[in-house]
């Protein structure tokens, strides 16, 4: 087993990976940029190496600096987390060339599956159903125009190197295609360094259902059930749950088999996620394989009791899986809400800045994977994710109730979060009924406004605090550098 692992990422995922490493007796190395000198992942790691300026290209995306940091600290393996270099096959190859174990799939699998068009072809060849669309990336707008006519509007523009909704656009008519392809390509270029795009048929009201898979280096491949991630905004998942309300045991078995087939077809090793769209008729289509640990992996951990990061590390160390498909049982229901720094009242624009105070929920069945703390300044340079709140309970409704309770106990002061929005989604009839399609937010929450039910209480609290402060100022005279005189501090003490 490794003695030391470098985690080439930032924020909550690094903190989460450190937790497992520590339990396994493995030392951890964090890396950081200028903007992240006092980030939680730096404070939590055993060692931290400075990479450079805040721009990702000069820090978290800089392979030379990360490899050098691993060598300098004697780390034998690198965990890439999600995002940044996690799905960059050149980096995987680079690790191998430098004698460092990459905790993830081999370069070839990352490369094949990372190119969404190659991935589609691989799936077609192995009998996994795919969405109708282009077989290769295209830059010429005239060719794209013809392809869109062939597929039929509405079409979905996707980045060939994509993920996380970056570079994705829905286009309803030919008139909008040109501008949309240009902006999608530019966004893809800035996010992945690759502006290649392709078109796919846009399905109406599908659900997003993905399967977690684990594959060891000895040919064992299993799946760890599904996660439904249909609640999305701007193609970003915001609430995920497992099990999916849309899957019958039969459909679950079929999709699980397809996910395992997809992994085998691409010679996959380590943890991965096979994403599908499921339509109203229970037909499912391959979307893509995410060749990394997913943001929403904790819900799978909650219902299966399996630590996915531990499995990733064991597999990377060459150990065989200790369980088979028959051992995998999902117990109860788990749900995750992503807590972003964003303003739910101003079109969810980013809200970086200082967190004046943070109160994190606790209690039975609650897990909070966080990358922030009271007093921390959330930088504007990176992803807006602050934390992921996860709940686990016996049934779906109990899990919803638990999540609602936990969100009410989650106080973030200073940066704005979607917590009020999430609370309202969880208590909405459509969500409770499980009518979760990818257009859920547009359909039910496009005109959302907060209930403002706490207005009176907030006014009372304002007055209490104002009066208390007023009193405190009269009572406590600040005497910088001097010891406090009891006559000053106890001035207005009333027995």
């Amino acid at each position: 087993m490794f003695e030391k692992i470098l985690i080439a990422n930032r924020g909550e995922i690094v903190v989460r990976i450190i937790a497992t490493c520590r339990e396994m007796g493995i030392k951890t190395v964090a890396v950081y940029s200028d903007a992240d000198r006092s980030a939680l992942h730096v404070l939590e790691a055993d060692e931290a190496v400075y990479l450079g300026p805040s721009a990702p290209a000069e820090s978290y995306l800089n392979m030379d600096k990360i490899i050098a940091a691993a060598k300098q600290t004697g780390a034998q393996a690198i965990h890439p987390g999600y995002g940044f270099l996690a799905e960059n096959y050149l980096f995987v190859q680079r690790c191998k060339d430098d004698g460092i174990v990459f905790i993830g799939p081999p370069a070839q699998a990352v490369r094949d599956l990372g190119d969404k068009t190659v991935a589609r072809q691989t799936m077609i060849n192995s009998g996994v159903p795919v969405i109708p669309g282009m077989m290769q990336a295209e830059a010429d707008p005239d060719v794209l125009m013809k392809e869109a006519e062939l597929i039929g509007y509405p079409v979905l523009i996707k980045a060939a190197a994509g993920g996380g909704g970056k570079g994705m656009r829905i286009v309803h008519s030919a008139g909008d295609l040109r501008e949309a392809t240009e902006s999608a390509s530019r966004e893809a270029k800035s996010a992945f360094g690759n502006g290649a795009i392709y078109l796919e048929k846009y399905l109406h009201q599908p659900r997003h259902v993905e399967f977690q898979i684990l594959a060891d280096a000895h040919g064992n491949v299993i799946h760890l059930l599904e996660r439904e991630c249909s609640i999305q905004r701007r193609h970003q998942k915001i609430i995920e749950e497992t099990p999916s309300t849309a899957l019958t045991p039969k459909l679950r078995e079929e999709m699980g088999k397809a996910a395992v087939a997809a992994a085998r077809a691409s010679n996959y090793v380590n943890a991965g996620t096979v994403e599908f769209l499921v339509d109203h008729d229970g037909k499912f289509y391959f979307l893509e394989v995410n060749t990394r640990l997913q943001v929403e992996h904790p819900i799978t951990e909650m219902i299966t009791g399996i630590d996915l990061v531990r499995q990733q590390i064991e597999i990377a160390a060459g150990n065989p899986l200790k369980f088979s498909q028959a051992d995998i049982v999902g117990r109860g229901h788990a749900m995750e809400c992503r807590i972003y720094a964003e303003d739910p009242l101003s079109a969810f624009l980013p809200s970086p800045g200082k967190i004046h105070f943070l109160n994190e929920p606790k209690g039975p069945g609650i897990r909070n994977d966080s990358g922030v703390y009271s007093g921390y300044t959330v930088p504007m340079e990176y992803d807006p994710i602050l934390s992921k709140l996860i709940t686990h309970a016996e049934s779906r409704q109990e899990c919803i109730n638990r999540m609602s309770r936990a969100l009410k106990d989650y106080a973030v002061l200073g940066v704005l979060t979607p917590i009020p929005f999430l609370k309202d989604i969880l208590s909405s009839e459509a969500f409770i009924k499980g009518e979760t399609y990818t257009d859920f937010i547009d359909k039910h929450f496009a005109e959302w406004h907060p209930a403002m039910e706490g207005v009176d209480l907030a006014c009372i609290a304002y007055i209490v605090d104002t009066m208390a402060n007023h009193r405190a100022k009269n009572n406590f005279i600040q005497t910088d550098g001097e010891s406090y005189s009891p006559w000053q501090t106890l001035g207005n003490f009333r027995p």
Partner: protein
Amino acid sequence: MDYNLKIGGQILPVEADLKDDGTLLARIGEKSFTTRYQIISEKQIHIDVEGIGMNVYLADNDDGKLINIHGTTYLVQDADTLERSGTRKRSSKELPQEITPPMPSVVECIMVAEGDVVEKGQSVIMVSAMKMEVKLQAPFKGKVLKINVAEGDKVMPGQILMDIEREEEDERKTQEEITQEKEKI
């Protein structure tokens, strides 16, 4: 003590009376509340309103207090103080008349040069924060007089990134718009 508190776009008149026994009587509009409280820390108080207890978390902001009730954060401001200090927030219906970012962000791309004539609604500058790009548009037809920032600069809401001189011929201004402009000056 009487307050006019601004919260969520409305102004509420609040009468507060602190009794000798530590009970606070608050009248908000037509409603009355009997409250007991404990100061737990600088950022936490516990209030008991009509017999129901709860934790409230709060922090002072530049122009008010951030107050968290059941997971939702409210900005509560003293409307009288706001009026005195002359802070005036634009209503959301009004179009922004200045080139200023909606969020703390980095200038990604300046799409015009000084001296250019821009059309109303034309994108003039692009900023980004947390991987989200936002294009700022010219609020009216006019000439770019001065660009106050460079690509790569960090900018804040309220900061004027570019000065655009409104073109004279924009004559179909309503009397109301003219009045609003005067107010600003």
